[in-house]
């Protein structure tokens, strides 16, 4: 048996995983990254529009700070997030953006003086301050009070991923490319690493590590049409489910992005609307102001997507051979702006649609985009049920997005989580818990089991067809576990997915190879994907309320009284379905008590403690203390941060109180 020992095994080579590895390496430990693909090809590369960080440099960002970013994030989550984590995130985001600048990201910068922008369909002149010249600028994004989204044209994820990958290379961190973790090695209480398959040779290796970090991204590919890369099949979530002890959180919380092109499902950035683009219907009519008069096209993503679907249900969609769609109109921005700030969008339109977005409308439709749910961890990114198992980025539910993520908060989360979880993993490795003796017998048993299973799958001569099962799973998820959900459809979905899971174990294989063989890969991933799909569907069925992106037509109210909680899912060995339980969110500890997001008609069943907590908060705010003091009284969080990251963020309008030591 081939065994590799390392301090920290990072499963996933995207932004979150690589940034985590850098933090661990800088603490004097040896991290090792596993990646399905060359690390620079990870899905982080597809983030287009930008990263939220409250730098407050540009004129429309003036007055921005952590408080505003925190409140936008909590409102965006429909109060489903962990407010401590959202606070830590808002505090860290400016540091992360500045670290990216220091490492090489060529953020777009503020240019002093007048410039013209499009706001609400009108051309407006903004005047930037002299003092801000050359600092990182920001654009508008949905659901935010300030222009806070830092960007490099519309290739932000690319610029960030290349910068972080280059640092990984500079710091000599090994990346094993084209490998896949098949199982976590654990004894029911302690995670000890993973059994890993080489996707080229088919060889299995046991990687033994003090800490194992799941940073595998989302599970969008269980839907038929998704903006996600093809590798986002939820294998990280499946690895955790198959431990039988560690749990996933809020798997039913899934975001549908308003503007993916039809039919390819490729994303065009929210930056299109942030920069002034409009949504129009079959008549060329701008419909969003009728539904959301205040935020219009820049309401939160869950809201815009639902409004678009609602409008299409009224017969206002544009008919096409691929189903109805709506139009995204960025012609109003002009060719010069598109050539400079929306160049990927222009490329996508040109290559996949054969249109010029400076002249033509873009056909768009809400499409699966982001997984708010994932591996449930505490604020340190560690699983409470399996010591030594960590997770970060989109793969994790630590949980800063609750039931809806704001645009620009995902790439921001990847690097922030990497900065924090890297420190916590290092702390863990250097603590008594991290110091521990591995069981090679356990590793061998785990490896032998995986090898036997692969051989059995490869020899499979059953009657079932993997492609047909997969397409059916995708259709069930799209039809019944999509933007609008209801009890009877979800019941049927759970039943059918269960049937597909049983059938997926009786596949007929046409080839034999155990090495680079895509048929084998599909065959062993399929039951895992179905387990993830079932966890999503069952969570959606049981959550009889509407919150953020989870919308139940039969339970349209947000029900804080009964459902202000987080879904936890565990799949016990031998069970046909996951076991769900719920973790309450405590209103009395919230800095921002549950309220109305301001979209549509208020439809909330209040939690019994909300009024009391709101009164406490109002009283504290009336005291007119410094904002940091108020914050600290309401919900103290800095003690949870690694010491090196506790400092305040300097801004043009907020110089640091004490000059830093020379």
């Amino acid at each position, binding site marked *: 048996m081939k065994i590799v020992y390392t301090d920290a095994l990072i499963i996933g080579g995207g932004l979150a995983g690589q940034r985590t590895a850098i933090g661990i390496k800088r603490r004097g430990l040896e991290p090792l990254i596993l990646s399905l*693909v*060359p*690390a*620079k*090809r*990870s*899905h982080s*590369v*597809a983030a287009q529009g930008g990263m939220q960080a409250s*730098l407050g440099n540009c004129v429309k960002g003036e007055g921005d700070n952590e408080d505003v970013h925190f409140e936008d994030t909590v409102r965006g989550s429909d109060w489903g997030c962990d407010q401590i984590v959202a606070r830590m995130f808002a505090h860290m985001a400016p*540091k*992360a953006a*500045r*670290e990216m600048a*220091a*490492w*090489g990201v*060529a953020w*777009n*910068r*503020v*240019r002093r003086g007048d410039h013209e922008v499009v706001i609400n369909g009108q051309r407006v002149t903004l005047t930037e301050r002299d003092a801000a*010249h*050359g*600092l990182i600028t920001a654009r508008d994004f949905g659901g935010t009070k300030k222009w806070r989204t830092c960007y*490099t*044209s519309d*290739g932000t994820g*690319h*610029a960030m991923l*290349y*910068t972080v990958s*280059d*640092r990984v*290379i*500079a710091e000599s961190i090994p990346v094993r*490319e*084209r490998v896949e973790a098949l199982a976590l090695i654990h004894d029911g209480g302690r995670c000890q690493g993973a059994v890993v398959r080489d996707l*080229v*040779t088919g060889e299995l290796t046991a990687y033994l590590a003090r800490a194992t970090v799941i940073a595998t991204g989302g599970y969008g590919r269980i839907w038929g049409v998704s903006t996600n*890369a*093809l*590798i986002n099949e939820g294998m990280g979530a499946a690895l955790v489910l198959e431990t039988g002890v560690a749990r996933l959180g809020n798997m039913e919380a899934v975001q549908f992005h308003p503007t993916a092109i039809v039919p*390819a499902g*490729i994303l065009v950035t929210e930056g299109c609307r942030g920069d002034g683009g409009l949504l129009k219907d079959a008549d060329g009519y701008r419909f969003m102001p009728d539904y959301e008069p205040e935020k219009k096209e820049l309401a939160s993503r869950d809201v815009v997507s639902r409004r678009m679907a609602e409008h299409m249900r009224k017969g206002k969609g544009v008919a096409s051979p691929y189903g109805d769609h709506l139009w995204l109109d960025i012609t109003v921005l002009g060719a010069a702006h598109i050539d*400079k700030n929306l160049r990927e969008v222009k*490329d996508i339109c040109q*290559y*996949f649609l054969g249109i010029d977005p400076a002249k033509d409308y873009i056909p768009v439709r809400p499409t699966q985009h982001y997984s708010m749910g994932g591996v449930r961890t505490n604020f340190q990114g560690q699983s409470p049920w399996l010591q030594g198992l960590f997770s970060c980025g989109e793969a994790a539910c630590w949980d800063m997005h609750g039931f809806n993520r704001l645009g620009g908060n995902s790439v921001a989360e990847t690097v922030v989580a990497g900065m924090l979880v890297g420190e916590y993993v290092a702390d863990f490795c250097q603590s008594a818990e991290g110091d521990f003796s591995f069981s090679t017998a356990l590793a061998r048993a785990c490896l032998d089991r995986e090898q036997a299973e692969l051989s059995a799958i490869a020899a499979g001569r059953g009657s079932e067809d993997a*492609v047909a099962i997969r397409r059916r799973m995708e259709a069930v998820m799209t039809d019944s576990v999509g933007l609008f959900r209801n009890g009877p459809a979800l019941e049927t979905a759970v039943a059918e997915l269960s049937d597909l899971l049983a059938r997926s174990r009786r596949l007929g*294989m046409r080839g034999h190879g155990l*090495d*680079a063989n*895509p*048929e084998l890969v599909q065959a062993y991933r399929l039951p895992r994907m179905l387990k993830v799909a079932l966890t999503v569907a069952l969570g959606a069925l049981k959550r009889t309320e509407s919150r953020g992106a989870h919308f139940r037509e039969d339970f349209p109210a947000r029900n804080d009284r009964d459902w202000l909680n987080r879904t936890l899912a565990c799949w016990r060995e031998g069970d046909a379905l996951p076991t769900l339980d719920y973790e309450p969110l405590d209103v009395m500890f919230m800095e921002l008590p549950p309220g109305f997001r301001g979209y549509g008609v208020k439809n909330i069943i209040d939690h019994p403690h909300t009024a009391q907590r709101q009164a406490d908060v109002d009283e504290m705010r009336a005291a007119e203390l410094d904002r940091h003091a108020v914050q600290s009284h309401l919900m103290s969080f800095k003690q949870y941060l690694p010491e090196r990251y506790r*400092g*305040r963020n*300097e801004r043009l309008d907020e110089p*640091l109180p004490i000059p*830093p030591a020379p």
Partner: protein
Amino acid sequence: MSRTLTFTVFRHNPRNPADAPHTRTYHLDETPGMTLFIALTRLRDEQDPGLNFDFVCRAGVCGSCAMVINGRPGLACRTLTANLPAEISLFPLPGFELIGDLSVNTGKWMRAMSERLRAWLHVNAEADVNLMEAPMEPETAEAVYELDRCIECGCCVAGCGTARMRPDFVGAVGMNKIARFRLDPRDVRSDADFYEVVGDDSGIFGCMSLLGCQDVCPKQLPLQTQIAYLRRSMVRQGVW
């Protein structure tokens, strides 16, 4: 009028000594808006479940799917079959280790190139992340990003005459990286430092100026101009 497409696809498993490199022919009915991603996925799903190829983003941004399409390197995911004749030949990108069929190991090549050229931002001391970031001229940031848009797909290496003759040639991808960091005011390296890594025949002086790299670059990077400027600077560095 819908066409029937004929695909001639390179097939070979280099780990199987019994498997000689060969091509296999497939037929597929063309559908509206069909890309080579859609076509190859259908071929695998419907006709040949063992066919190896690489797609990740399928949106033209990750650089995974470069292959030789009717004799020309390009990104398969964003190539519409409507823009090709009914006879389509697909071969793996030359210049890289073959994994199988249309899949090659660009990742390994690119990491080795980055390590050799030290292709990352070099600074003397890292900034304190609590403090305001150092300002940069907006035009400079835009110019750096322009060169930073490379997706390491390998098309430029596959289209390069020198790379055919010299396996150690860093290719346009490598020289563009040097140009990118050289342009970046945050990078502390001088031309003398850059000369150390590209000032020979495996670097800037190996380029024969055939400029196939620029012809096939899917991101339309200004490789010709960058190579020319870099060569002039490196000559100056080498002479003085």
